[in-house]
């Protein structure tokens, strides 16, 4: 109780345990388990909806494109060339996607390390979103690998390229996915009604949270460090030795902005699955997250300006590239930063969401600028993505939404865990 009162916010309603939680299946044998799994495989809700139809078409065509890619090579459906070895599959799917999935490590830090219990209700959905983002967007990396069958080499220790930042990032992706899976696993155990397993997995949460935050600190910055060796190729306005720090700091508000937007979206879409408690305090959570975003963005903006001043490249600002740089810095960092501050001061939930959308656009711009647009900026024939590159990206997003929907509709993610599970935690 003291936690809530100490923070001084009047709107907070403490969690009251709901005596009647959702029911759990009775699983006594492997036969029961398989039967339950099979019954859960069936779709819930209407099959023919506009979203289902459109996403099915996208995925169907996307799968054909992926087959073409594996038969005829990466060049058959991308515009990558010898000067531009990385396109939007890396620049957007992986580099931007992972920044946007940063919400999971920030939220677990806030809830489990700082003990801010008011955010507890959204932790599960944030961790799930983070896990799926890593699974699908980092998984999309497999499409971009020319020789994916050799991915086993850095994993089994056949050859450790330990001097490579990519080695670090790859390992951290794998370990972090495992950590997030462990953080989410209590929900799976509750879904299956496995009490003993739930108890064991619940006990692993803190350790995996600490491990996960450490991994995130390193690979969020590591994604930026990937571009450090490309000093001679990235436009000097974007290249700085502080890219790793900037990537880390921006992943904080990128992740939280995603949590804000994704949260309010799934709040509507999965309204029936949302617990009363979460429903009541959702606006309060949004404002709270906006406050953290404002702080993180201020630090980020400050660092960006500091780097710019130390670079002493004022003349570059007068060029076309300078204008493009200022669009990113002013339009999509300073403006959302100001909006976050105002929205938090006036407690305007809608404005927080607008600010979050702008901030996310700024993150996409920044990551794409560094990895694609300002990369080889002097090229006569700049890389422009093939339509199929966008299409495959859309396919990945649709597949992720399907997976998310399947899980949210079955497991206690947005809603309350079953009563027996809550008793375990007390």
């Amino acid at each position, binding site marked *: 109780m003291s936690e809530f009162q100490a923070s001084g916010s009047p709107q907070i309603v403490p969690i009251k345990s709901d005596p009647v939680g959702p029911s759990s299946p009775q699983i006594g044998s492997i036969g029961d388990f398989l039967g339950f799994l099979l019954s859960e495989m069936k779709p819930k809700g209407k099959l023919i909806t506009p979203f289902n139809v459109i996403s099915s078409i996208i995925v169907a065509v996307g799968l054909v494109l992926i087959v073409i890619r594996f038969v005829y090579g990466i060049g058959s459906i991308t515009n990558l060339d010898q000067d531009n070895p990385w396109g939007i599959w890396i620049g957007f799917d992986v580099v931007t996607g992972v920044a946007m999935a940063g919400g999971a490590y920030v939220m677990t830090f806030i809830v489990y390390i700082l003990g801010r219990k008011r955010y507890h209700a959204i932790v599960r959905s944030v961790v799930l979103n983070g896990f799926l983002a890593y699974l699908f967007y980092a998984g999309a990396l497999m499409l971009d690998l*020319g020789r994916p069958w050799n991915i086993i080499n850095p994993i089994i220790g*056949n050859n450790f390229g330990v001097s490579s930042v990519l080695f670090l990032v790859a390992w951290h992706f794998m370990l972090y996915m495992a950590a997030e899976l462990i953080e989410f696993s209590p929900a799976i155990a509750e879904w299956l009604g496995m009490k003993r397993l739930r108890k064991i997995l619940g006990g692993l949460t803190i350790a995996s949270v600490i491990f996960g935050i450490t991994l995130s600190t390193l690979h969020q910055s590591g994604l930026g460090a990937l571009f450090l060796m490309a000093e*001679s190729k990235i436009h000097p306005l974007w290249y700085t030795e502080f890219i790793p720090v900037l990537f880390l700091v921006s992943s904080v508000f990128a992740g939280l902005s995603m949590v804000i937007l994704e949260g309010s979206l799934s709040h509507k879409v999965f309204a029936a699955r949302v617990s009363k408690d979460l429903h009541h305090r959702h606006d309060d959570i949004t404002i709270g997250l906006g406050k953290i975003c404002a702080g993180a963005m201020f630090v980020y903006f400050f660092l960006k300006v500091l780097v710019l001043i130390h670079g002493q490249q004022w003349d570059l600002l007068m060029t076309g590239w300078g204008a493009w740089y200022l669009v990113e810095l002013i339009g999509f960092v300073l403006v959302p930063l100001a909006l976050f501050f105002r929205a938090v001061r006036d407690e305007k939930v809608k404005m927080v969401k607008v600010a979050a959308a702008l901030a996310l656009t700024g993150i996409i711009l920044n990551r794409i600028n560094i990895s694609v647009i300002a990369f080889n900026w002097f090229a006569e024939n700049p890389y422009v993505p093939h339509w199929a590159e966008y299409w495959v990206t859309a396919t990945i997003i649709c597949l992720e939404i399907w997976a998310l929907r399947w899980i949210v509709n079955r497991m206690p993610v947005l809603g309350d865990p079953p009563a027996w599970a809550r008793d375990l935690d007390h």
Partner: protein
Amino acid sequence: MERRDFLKNLCIAGASAVGVAAAGEAEAAREKKEFVSVLVDTTRCIGCRNCEVACATENGLPIPDNKDKTVFENIRDMTPDQWTVVNRFDTDDGEIFVKKQCMHCNQAACSTACLTQAMYKTEDGPVIWRASKCMGCRFCMVSCPFVVPKFEYHSANPKIQKCILCYERLEDGGIPACVESCPVDALQFGSRREMVRIAQNRVVDHPDQYEDHIYGQNEVGGTGWLYLSAVPFDQIGFRDDLSHEPVPALTQNFLYAVPVVFLLWPAFLNGMRYIKTEEDEEAQIEEVYNPGDES
């Protein structure tokens, strides 16, 4: 203990636990051995393109027609099928022919970037590529300051293709095929120290013939291929804005920081959580002694 040494030791301690080692150690150790080198004297090259033919023959690539002089109309880049090209530049000093291929950097960005050691700096100096290890991520291409590694975008089993300095011939005591094919001694093969000395002597002996700049002596920390020119190097297709610092040094600080973060961050986080729990307990005790005080 020096701060740097301390950090290094911390790294090594962390490396065993985390699987990340400092990039510089191995590279520095390797550099003690004398690397092989090729000196290109662009003032001697006649543009016969025998080297292109020899390279293709040696490496089983499509053999170019070196009688065809129209290729000089455009500046060409290497391709997956052609590991070396000769270009013609019209300069202040007239036509100059320049052979281009992998520079075989002393501290190669590509091999540092490679997470499977497929791109590999051998002890003798050639940077080679090993198909059984490569996963095709193309980080070597992103990192190479000379844009050398080429990828087969239209293959289901794509390879990274580039000059490997005929390392198998070298192991048998031979010299690179291109050097052997050169009719005018524009290419010379030997130890790097020796080639630098020859290049320096030529510049000193004939200051009117050469720019006072040996390209590759210092660029990106030194390269295996060295170039002499009569005109500034930016006129013959070289980037003259490259740092003299080895490219891998750019990520070294980051990699040094990794084990430090990995060891200290969990302890720090755990400490924070512990303090927080203590605080909560204190507050509960307070509540017991001063009931109702807080509302």
